[in-house]
């Protein structure tokens, strides 16, 4: 994933638009025609080192090795399950990649259609066949809580610089929040707090491009959930 430059223009580019004619190399979502770099998707022009590419505004999630994502079991075979992770291709989860010893044909005893799982993308080959695992730490079947879906392009905004946004959300709402790279997010906490967390995340998705978003989200949550003023807590000493 290319690093983004902090100061970019907001100008939208569309497929075919010229990004550069001075000899820069094509970055992500760009190609070269007659010596000029052109956009191949709709999005924002992005310069990275000596390449110029596009950060897409739209488009579905494409899995990358190492991503942690949520998924739903949509089909079961005798030695694997098929998971919908919001990508163009379903991801097969093989019995060798789960923490249990599953006998051939017993797959439905462990995970059934509709179950939600947290998995990691192991690899994506040239023909885009995806392999996933549930064997790493933290990966598991997910129960309870709420699962919401936002555009995967907004995931970094929800996480924030060095995780600042997501930490604020967790602390202020007192909820467990896990963000999948595919834009599927799991929230677990008290009912009303969860509603506020969901609304805050939807607000971030809606207003991802605005300035002072962090402050406005903080204000929004404060209005709904009174915060303990820990700084001034005298303590018991």
């Amino acid at each position, binding site marked *: 994933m290319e690093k*983004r430059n902090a100061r970019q223009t907001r100008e*939208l580019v569309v497929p075919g638009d010229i990004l550069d004619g001075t000899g820069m190399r094509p970055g992500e979502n760009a190609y070269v025609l007659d010596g000029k770099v*052109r956009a191949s*998707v709709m999005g924002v022009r992005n310069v990275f080192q000596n390449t110029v590419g596009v950060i897409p505004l739209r488009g579905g999630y494409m899995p990358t090795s190492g991503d942690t994502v949520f998924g739903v079991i949509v089909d079961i075979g005798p030695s694997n399950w098929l998971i919908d992770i919001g990508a*163009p291709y379903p991801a097969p989860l093989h019995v060798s990649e789960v923490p249990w010893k599953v006998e051939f044909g017993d797959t439905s005893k462990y995970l059934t259609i509709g179950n939600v799982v947290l998995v990691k993308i192991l690899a994506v080959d040239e023909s*885009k066949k995806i392999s996933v695992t549930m064997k790493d730490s933290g990966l598991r079947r997910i129960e309870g809580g709420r699962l919401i879906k936002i555009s995967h*392009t907004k995931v970094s905004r929800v996480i924030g610089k060095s995780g600042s946004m997501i930490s604020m959300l967790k602390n202020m709402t007192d909820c467990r929040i896990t963000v999948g790279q595919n834009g599927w997010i799991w929230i677990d906490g008290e009912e009303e707090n969860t509603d506020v967390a969901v609304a805050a995340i939807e607000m971030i998705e809606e207003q991802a491009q605005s300035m002072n978003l962090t402050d406005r989200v903080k204000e929004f949550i404060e209005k709904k959930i009174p915060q303990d003023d820990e700084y001034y807590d005298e303590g018991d000493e």
Partner: protein
Amino acid sequence: MSGHTDMVLVDENGLRIDGRTADQHRPFKIEAGVLNNADGSAYVEIGKNKVLAAVYGPRECHPRHLQDPTKAIVQCKYNMQSFSVSDRKRPGPDRRSIEISKIISEALEKVVLTELYPRASIDVYIEILQANAGTRCAGLTAASVALADAGIPMRDIVPALACGKADGHVLLDLNKEEDNYGQADVPIAIIPSTDEIVLLQMDGNMTREEFDHGIKMAVAGCHELHELQKDALKRRYSKKAEEASE
């Protein structure tokens, strides 16, 4: 193309029945992102044509036997709604719709970067809500915007427009009467960055000079249409263009 009429399609001042000159196209209108469920969508009006296009994909390819292990396939279905024409059309694909679906699929395959999505399908649906000659051009124009709206990687956005001949004059963007009673109809679609032709059909009777003249007008018209396609996307999404920060 085989009708006869006493109607004068182009008068002695070179004006057509809708007041246009030979080289003028009908009014264009394009809106992007008009449907909720579809991954990408667009609505286009060219004159009295009203067309809706929607894209789903890339997604798993159905039917499975059409899957290509090296790239995505583009499957376009063009359909005219029953009430889109003055003589009601019976629902269901007819041979004309099937042919048009095929040539539009082929035009789009050339611009979409299909190698990025092996085994997948990019499904394009074009519905003609109201027809007035040039529906396949309006349909392809809408489909291109819908593909960009869906974030599908492509070389360029493809515009399409027709030229033709009526009352002996070479005309740009035929209307219904000119198409029915005229002497030639030439729909064309280009890749604006290179002027490559990705869709071309012709029926009627034209000399080489007439054809060249028509193509020149059509290509220029396509470039104008292309500006509107880009503008539709920019209007829809400029506010949402992110400030790239982390």
